[in-house]
């Protein structure tokens, strides 16, 4: 099968709707298909990877640790839009540490998160073959 560039665009906050959780479930399956996988966190989607999520009191499962496990699935291209953070009063420090081990660099632990501008996000979106929106 041909290799395509898949992008998963996450624009919604977690817990208010199921899209964040079920988007992640698609990503985990997609990892098995040896396609190029990129995750974009734009607009309210930046809240999906915020630190210290504690949804127990609203009766929901905390799935935020799954983002930290994405490196084990060889998914390490997570792009976060800077403007989306700023508009929400957030900064890079508010995001979880999401890392992968670089096999080409003696398994050094490196960040999977890259903060980019809206202009850079625009270019990244244009470079995809298949875009799933959640």
């Amino acid at each position, binding site marked *: 099968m041909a290799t395509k560039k898949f992008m998963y665009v996450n624009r919604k906050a977690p*817990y208010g*709707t*199921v899209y964040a959780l079920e988007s992640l479930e698609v990503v985990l399956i997609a990892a098995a298909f040896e396609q190029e996988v990129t995750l974009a966190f734009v607009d309210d989607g930046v809240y999906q990877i915020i630190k210290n999520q504690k949804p127990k009191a*609203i*009766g*929901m*499962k905390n799935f935020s640790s799954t983002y930290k496990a994405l490196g084990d699935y060889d998914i390490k291209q997570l792009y976060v839009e800077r403007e989306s953070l700023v508009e929400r009063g957030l900064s890079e420090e508010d995001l979880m540490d999401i890392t992968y081990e670089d096999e080409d660099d003696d398994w050094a632990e490196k960040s999977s998160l890259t903060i980019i501008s809206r202009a850079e996000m625009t270019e990244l979106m244009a470079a995809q073959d298949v875009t799933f929106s959640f």
Partner: protein
Amino acid sequence: MKYTLMVNEGPYQHQSADTAYQFAKAALAKGHEIFRVFFYHDGVNNGSRLSVPPKDDRLVQKQWSELAQQHGIDMVICIAAAQRRGLMDANEAKRQGLDADNIAPGFRISGLGQLIEGSIESDRTIVFGD
């Protein structure tokens, strides 16, 4: 106080059903009465007994059934909304010539008049939706 709650979205897709459930529990804990929970729009899907989510997640539909049974809450699914979306009790399924039903224990199917009546009878009506 006597409450009627209206739930307009289905389980999981939106938080509305969870919020309504948490609100109901909190109100009951303070000694208030939940006179009726009325499920409308996709909210009717809260009344399905065929749901089996992952074991580490809540079962929204069953939470409602248990709450109703523990506190004797009247939980009404709108018949018109339910027909569109395929939520049936045994009677309705038979009347429509269908070969199965899927309603969960503690729910009953009735008309929109139950919503209006609930709001007239109750001190407060709270709407939970998208």
